[in-house]
């Protein structure tokens, strides 16, 4: 009898472990995008296990399946890398940068590219299974964007850094596109099931819970759409900014936990919405600082960072009341990963931070080499952005120049992945890192 119980416990433990591992094969860990990963997390930094070079920035976040790390590169390639050694298993070229995160399901890697195509590759060999042409990719754009001049000229937003990452369920793959659509494709053939039109770019990644897809668009609306039919269930209106289009749009990807949808917005709020009705439960205002990060939700708390104010926040998931507020050093676009009692988050100054899950105190950080080199003094001596130097321009295109400079210090846009005590993340210096 004891043996039987032991056997059942062992089987359950194996199943749980398998579920935890499967939960690392798409953006933010699972279809609900909770951003939580099975422990143990490294509370101390020991070493760089390996670093894998690519030809350009790595904005994409890595995912894990069967001891292989998959991610996209802005050099146009999709990569499969041995998680233990950092050796390349395969790479496949697309015709544009790939700042999206892949999803792995049924032996297939799903990912979109700036070439306007959505790809399905064999996970083992990299062989192309099918590809689907959207109506074309583009960045969010507006006249007089962020106050740039000439104000009558349409300018593409350099901070629109990510592409939508897919979610896969029940033989259907869902993703957003710069053409304003959310697509639902047959995961085996790439045939279109349906598409849902919004008013602007959809680069947020849809979360899926209870048969409903949740995602935001740059048209200032957040949507809930029936995954089976593509019919709208509700929409929520975020902020508008008709003057300079700075405080508008959902770039953040949502997390759905216990019937509540959590999403950041460029209107500088973090919103908590009722998943069934779309009614606002609470909002957390960030004084005109964007919330680009996708929130992580664990133990009744929501973890997120802000852009210009460079703050790391933990708030109560039920009430939105602040629990932790820590001043960071630079903009945060990367989304936090919660593993046990440690939160990992990338910072645009080229640093990965490990923070205590309860206090938010910095446990350790890792600075990439490009950040240490600090070419053109992009950073101040204490690793903050050197704003007076960066944004100096007689032409009002300073954000474009500044963004380009920020990339040079190996900014970490990529959201960390934690597997078996190793943290994987990409950097704008062109490397994918594995640290432990």
């Amino acid at each position: 009898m004891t043996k039987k119980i032991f056997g059942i416990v062992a089987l359950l433990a194996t199943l749980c472990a398998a579920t935890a591992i499967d939960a690392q094969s798409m953006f933010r860990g699972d279809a609900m995008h909770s951003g939580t990963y099975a422990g143990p997390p490294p509370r101390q930094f020991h070493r760089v296990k390996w670093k894998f070079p690519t030809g350009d920035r790595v904005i994409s976040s890595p995912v894990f399946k069967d001891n292989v790390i998959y991610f996209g590169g802005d050099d146009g390639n999709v990569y499969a890398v041995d998680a233990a050694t950092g050796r390349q298993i395969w790479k496949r070229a697309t015709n544009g940068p790939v700042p999206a995160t892949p999803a792995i399901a049924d032996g297939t890697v799903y990912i979109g590219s700036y070439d306007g195509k959505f790809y399905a590759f064999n996970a083992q060999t990299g062989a192309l299974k099918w590809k689907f042409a959207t109506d074309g990719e583009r960045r969010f754009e507006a006249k007089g964007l962020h106050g740039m001049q000439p104000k009558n000229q349409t300018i593409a937003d350099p901070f629109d850094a990510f592409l939508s990452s897919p979610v896969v369920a029940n033989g259907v793959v869902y993703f957003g596109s710069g053409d304003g659509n959310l697509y639902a494709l047959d995961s085996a053939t790439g045939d279109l099931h349906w598409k849902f039109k919004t008013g602007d770019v959809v680069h947020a990644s849809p979360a899926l819970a209870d048969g409903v897809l949740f995602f935001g668009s740059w048209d200032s609306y957040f949507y809930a759409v029936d995954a089976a039919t593509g019919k709208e269930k509700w929409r929520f209106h975020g902020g508008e900014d008709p003057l300079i289009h700075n405080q508008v749009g959902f770039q953040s990807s949502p997390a759905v936990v216990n019937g509540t949808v959590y999403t950041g917005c460029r209107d500088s709020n973090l919103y908590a919405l009722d998943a069934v009705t779309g009614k606002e439960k609470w909002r957390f205002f960030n004084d005109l600082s964007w919330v680009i990060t996708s929130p992580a939700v664990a133990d009744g708390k929501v973890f997120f960072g802000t852009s210009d104010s460079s703050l790391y926040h933990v708030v109560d998931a039920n009430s939105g009341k602040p629990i932790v507020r820590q001043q960071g050093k630079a903009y945060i676009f990367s989304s936090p990963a919660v593993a046990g009692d440690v939160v990992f988050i990338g910072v645009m100054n080229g640093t990965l931070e490990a923070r205590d899950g309860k206090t938010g105190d910095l446990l350790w950080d890792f600075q990439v080499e490009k950040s240490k080199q600090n070419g053109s003094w992009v950073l101040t001596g204490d690793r903050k952005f050197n704003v007076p130097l960066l944004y100096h321009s007689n032409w009002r295109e300073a954000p474009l120049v500044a963004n380009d400079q920020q990339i040079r210090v190996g900014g970490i846009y990529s959201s960390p992945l934690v597997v078996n005590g190793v943290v994987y993340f990409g950097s704008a210096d062109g490397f994918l890192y594995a640290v432990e």
Partner: protein
Amino acid sequence: MTSAGARVRLIVILIVAAALPCRADDAITGRWEGSAHIPDDELNVIVDLTQENGTWAGSIIIPGLGLKGTPLTEIKVQPPDVNFAVKGALGIQLKLRLDANNKLAGNFEQGGNRASASLQRTGPPQVEYPPRNTPVAKELEGEWKGDYEMLGYTRHVSIKFANHPDGATAEFVIVGRKHNVLPVDLVTQEGEMVTVDSHEMGFSFEGRLKNGKLTGAVRQAAIETPLVLVRAK
């Protein structure tokens, strides 16, 4: 000295002499990581070099220049000198020398500019090779034809597939105002997906073989135009 002793000594000298270039070559084989110090920037440079059947092969990675596993050309290894060029339009050349600290140091040249470069051996080589032609399905062998329109006039396309022991080949012809025979670098078929690439001309066809048709698109630089090919009669 006896003649037998002299013979042994000569043999030893010959063996050592023969081994010297091998050891020198071994010192060059590997993954080399470092940087080129161009003004206001440090370019990360990762070079993989290996020898196969007496011929040097290699590839290079330069994050920020979009180079990942790009083949090396004109590789000349005459220890301690190591010189090579990088395939493609960037026109990069590296002229390096193995120094006393086992570093490859020298110059990184591009566009008439020159910067110092220094690389350190970090492990065994991970040379990337360009993709190779695959065989194509029997039903794909032979000639396929179709038309597409661009800038107001029609182009007639013909692709003729043939299988060989080392993979398939294709004759790729486009007839518009001129008769263009495109040099083909790569022919692949993976399941239903068929690719014919003329890297030199920046031109490719990619299509899906289904229901007796090759449905896809021709691509030239960033311009993509739909094209359906059917078997030539």
